[in-house]
């Protein structure tokens, strides 16, 4: 009897149960949601309410269930839950078995993810990064740091203040509040709108259906605000943004059971893992719906969702996040630079790199070798002069770099050469270190303490090559520098700003003849062509993506060419999208290692 919907209810709980029982009745009726809409409208209630989307968990065929049953099933992982179905036997016959498992850890949401989540749910762009303490990196990777470091008191205080600020910004400019609550909060005082807003929003923010108790708490806190409905909703959003369930990814955890070595992820957990890896944000409504009704457990549906996600424009977010960490691109984001010209140039060079990656590996789905060899790039009025060109527009234009520029691939980008320099000085060691560590996965130890760096007496100032060759005369330096200096020296044809040059700062010719990995190279492009063709680069790149996907650096993880993942990737043409698909459709992607608890 949904007519009672209109009656004033003095306590929230009664109201809540009535609201839910009406809704569940509607869902379980032959007309389903349509009948709910009809009843609501015909009962004379707020028509807008009936148009609001319902939380996904309540769309999931919850016939005859009580609120407690629904919420408990999701919150506690009850075995009767369709989202918990064991999927290990249902994988596609050509799924590749990876040799690594994700850990049962609790990563913190990153600053970028915070921004994307707010944008995806409320359509509001925010700047979170500058208002929170930095996310610390582990082994150079912020995403690894998110799993390892605790937040300090100051960091938590900043999250606390930010929640209020973001809530205020959302309620000042979002056009989606009406969609989420079903009414205009400025014109209505109906508590049903508040409840609907909290239910819809919490499910998205917390990435999981919430327990009744948890929802009740948020609703009760918000109702204590005596101001208007918008204020109540705004307060509820601040409360949710402060919850550890928003700040941390807690899905995938579970009670420690000594007898269980691995745990299958629920369909909600799969949806989250997929979405945060590929889109760097929350699952969208379609993915959540498939998770809620358990369909995501069907391998055909799962794979078709993966294809949909790999084809989405949001894929760029996930891929660019990986490359930002892989190449340390945030060094080009200099907020504090006072020289506007430098700031603009760095920003343009970062945009160029992001556009290059997006074009090559997302839009064109090219072989990963071209990441090192492609001559295509993007320039505008600001960045063109670095490449000896001119442009009249601030818009970026795709070009193919002329041979005179002698540059190709990602290391041909001026921005990369700037990152790998020490201020005004080039750093062949930094440039070579990137090649050894990030492109070839070589592990370099710490520099020794108290190393002898006495320079030989000479009349002339040594060239950079001569200076670096001194490393090979010291046993304590030689081991590492022989792996860094030679591959870096071939890039001496680019100055610290990334501009092509033929002479060093003292106008001496630059000698780029080096021996590396038992071969002679006399130009950066020779080295890049060699790397692009090598299996070592491809297997290293696959390892980097795997580490990133699993969330930790696994020194035991093998990606040599005999591994199934590499064989399959070769068949698929070594494209990044195909590698991601191999990883996320592997049965092991949907499990976690409970021994890590």
């Amino acid at each position: 009897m949904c007519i009672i919907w209109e009656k004033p209810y003095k306590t929230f709980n009664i109201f809540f149960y009535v609201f839910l029982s009406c809704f569940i009745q509607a869902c379980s009726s032959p007309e389903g949601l349509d009948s709910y809409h009809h009843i609501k409208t015909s009962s004379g209630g707020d028509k807008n309410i009936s148009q609001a989307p319902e939380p996904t968990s309540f769309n999931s065929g919850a016939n005859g269930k009580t609120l407690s049953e629904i919420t408990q099933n999701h919150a506690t992982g009850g075995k009767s839950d369709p989202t918990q179905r064991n999927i290990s036997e249902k994988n596609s016959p050509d799924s590749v078995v990876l040799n690594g498992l994700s850990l049962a850890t609790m990563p913190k949401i990153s600053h970028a993810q915070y921004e994307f989540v707010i944008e995806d749910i409320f359509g509001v762009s925010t700047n979170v990064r500058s208002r929170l303490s930095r996310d610390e990196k582990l082994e150079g990777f912020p995403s690894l740091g998110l799993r390892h470091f605790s937040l300090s008191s100051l960091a938590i205080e900043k999250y606390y203040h930010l929640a209020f600020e973001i809530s205020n910004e959302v309620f000042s400019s979002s056009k989606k509040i009406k969609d989420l609550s079903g009414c205009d909060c400025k014109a209505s005082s109906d508590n049903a709108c508040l409840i609907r807003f909290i239910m819809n929003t919490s499910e998205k923010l917390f990435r999981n259906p919430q327990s009744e108790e948890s929802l009740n708490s948020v609703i009760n806190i918000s109702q204590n605000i005596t101001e208007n409905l918008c204020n109540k909703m705004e307060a509820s959003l601040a409360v949710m943004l402060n919850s550890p369930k928003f700040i941390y990814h807690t899905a995938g955890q579970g009670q420690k059971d000594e007898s269980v070595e691995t745990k299958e992820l629920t369909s909600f957990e799969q949806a989250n893992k997929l979405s945060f890896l590929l889109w760097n944000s929350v699952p969208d409504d379609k993915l959540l719906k498939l998770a809620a009704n358990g369909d995501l457990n069907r391998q055909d549906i799962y794979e078709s969702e993966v294809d949909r996600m790999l084809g989405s424009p949001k894929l760029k977010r996930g891929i660019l996040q990986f490359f930002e960490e892989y190449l340390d691109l945030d060094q080009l984001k200099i907020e504090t630079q006072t020289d506007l010209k430098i700031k603009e140039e760095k920003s343009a060079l970062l945009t160029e790199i992001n556009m290059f990656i997006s074009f090559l590996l997302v839009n064109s789905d090219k072989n990963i070798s071209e990441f090192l060899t492609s001559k295509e790039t993007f320039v505008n009025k600001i960045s063109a002069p670095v490449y000896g060109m001119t442009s009249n527009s601030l818009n970026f234009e795709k070009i193919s770099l002329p041979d005179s520029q002698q540059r190709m691939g990602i290391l041909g980008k001026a921005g990369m050469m700037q990152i790998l320099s020490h201020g005004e000085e080039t750093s062949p060691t930094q440039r070579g270190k990137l090649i050894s560590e990030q492109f070839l996965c070589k592990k370099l130890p710490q520099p020794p303490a108290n190393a002898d760096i006495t320079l030989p007496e000479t009349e002339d100032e040594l060239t950079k090559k001569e200076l670096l060759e001194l490393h090979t005369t010291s046993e304590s330096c030689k081991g590492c520098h022989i792996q860094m200096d030679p591959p870096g020296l071939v890039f001496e044809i680019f100055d610290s700003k990334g501009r092509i040059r033929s002479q060093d700062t003292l106008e001496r010719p630059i000698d780029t003849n080096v021996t590396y990995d038992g071969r002679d190279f006399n130009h950066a492009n020779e080295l890049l062509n060699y790397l692009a063709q090598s299996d070592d680069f491809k297997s290293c790149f696959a390892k980097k993506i795997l580490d990133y996907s699993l969330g930790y650096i696994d020194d035991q993880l093998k990606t040599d060419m005999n591994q199934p993942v590499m064989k399959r990737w070769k068949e698929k043409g070594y494209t990044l999208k195909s590698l991601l698909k191999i990883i996320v459709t592997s049965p092991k992607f949907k499990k976690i290692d409970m021994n890590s608890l």
Partner: protein
Amino acid sequence: MKNPTHNSRRQLIQKAAACFVSGLYLPSMNFMLNESGTAFANGQDLPGKFSLFFWGNGISPARWVPATEGANWQVSHSLKHCEDIKHRINVVSGLNVPTPTSHDAVVAMISGSQGEGTHLVSKHQGPSIDQEIAAIIGQNTPLKSLEIGVSDDLWANGAFVPYNGVSYTSSGQYNAIEYSPGALLKRMFGNASSPENPLELEKQKQRILLQKSLLDYSLKEANSLMGFLGQSDKLRMQAHMDGLRDIEKKILAFESSSGTCNVPEEGQGLSMTPESIPQRADLMTDLAVKALECGITNVLTLQFSPAAAELELIIDGIKRGPHHATTHIPGKEEDLALIIQEIMRYFAMYLKKMDAVKIGNQSLLDQMVVYGTSELSQPEIHSNVNMPVLIAGGGNGRLPEQSVHLNAKGASTSKALMTVMKAACGEKSKESIGHGTGKTSDVLKELLPVKTA
């Protein structure tokens, strides 16, 4: 024409002072102390106050170490600007870091914990010295400890955590550093205004109610997750809950205050540039002194620049640096020497401000133990011998009245850590510090009177 920046600085500090006067926090007052001001009237040890002053990229030992040892030490080239305050600074030379690798020195130097690092990720045991001390003397202040910084020019864009901040509770919990003077002021004193308008007052009550409920909810949610977490994540969640409780503690403190603190907008607008360093250093040291004076905290880390910082300073009108890069460029020794001298000028400025604050017969500096250090000695060679160590202040009478230059002749830097802990915490000090080869219970006896040594 008025200098707006100068005005804002004054305004900011005056506001801070106003909060203090409002009685929000109280220092130990004169009548509570014995005649010399070194203990409570009933003979109990005074709680000490401690500050870590850290700068990145070490020193140039040849220009750092004073030429003479003992009480009549002469300032070296690097310590030139400390002349006026040298009677409160003990210089300790000849200390070596108890770890063989260079990049672990930053950890060993601050915690006495031998790093087990590979590839610049030191996995160390035990907290940094400020947190060791905060666990003893930081429990009864609104903030257990405060971590602030002047320059955030991180090395390698902050890729390696031990280099970014020198205050940590464990290898998994680094204390974020506050670099904004405006944000720091807000954190120290909040917006403790009491509106007279009943409507505004009601709104404020609502806000406080919401804040409290929100924190209760977050704590409850955090607690509900604990049962599902692995051991290391439980510790992380516990740290999160501790952080939420710290906010609760502050809300209670502000709620009961009648101060009139407003954070001036100008204080938040300082950009991170070499040009603004003097202004930021001035503001941050003012606020640091105010936090210690007012009893907002007893333990404060002032990280002038992070380890291996790419700091740039304008000295004699010329931009010098980036600091770390300069250490690896042959022929830049003069620039390096000037940068270190300039950093020491700020160290001296910090001490002089503490000395200017009078509390009864004492100055704040008399109550303080200030530990100044860096992550290495000679940066060009990543040297971890003959490390820079400065121990300043009176330590409530525990440190020598007449400062000295002590040559420790190859002793472990952990001894310096043990010394400052004893000087700051007195009888409550732990018996030892550090782990592995860095562990010690020994102090630098010359710097401590018999009572505590």
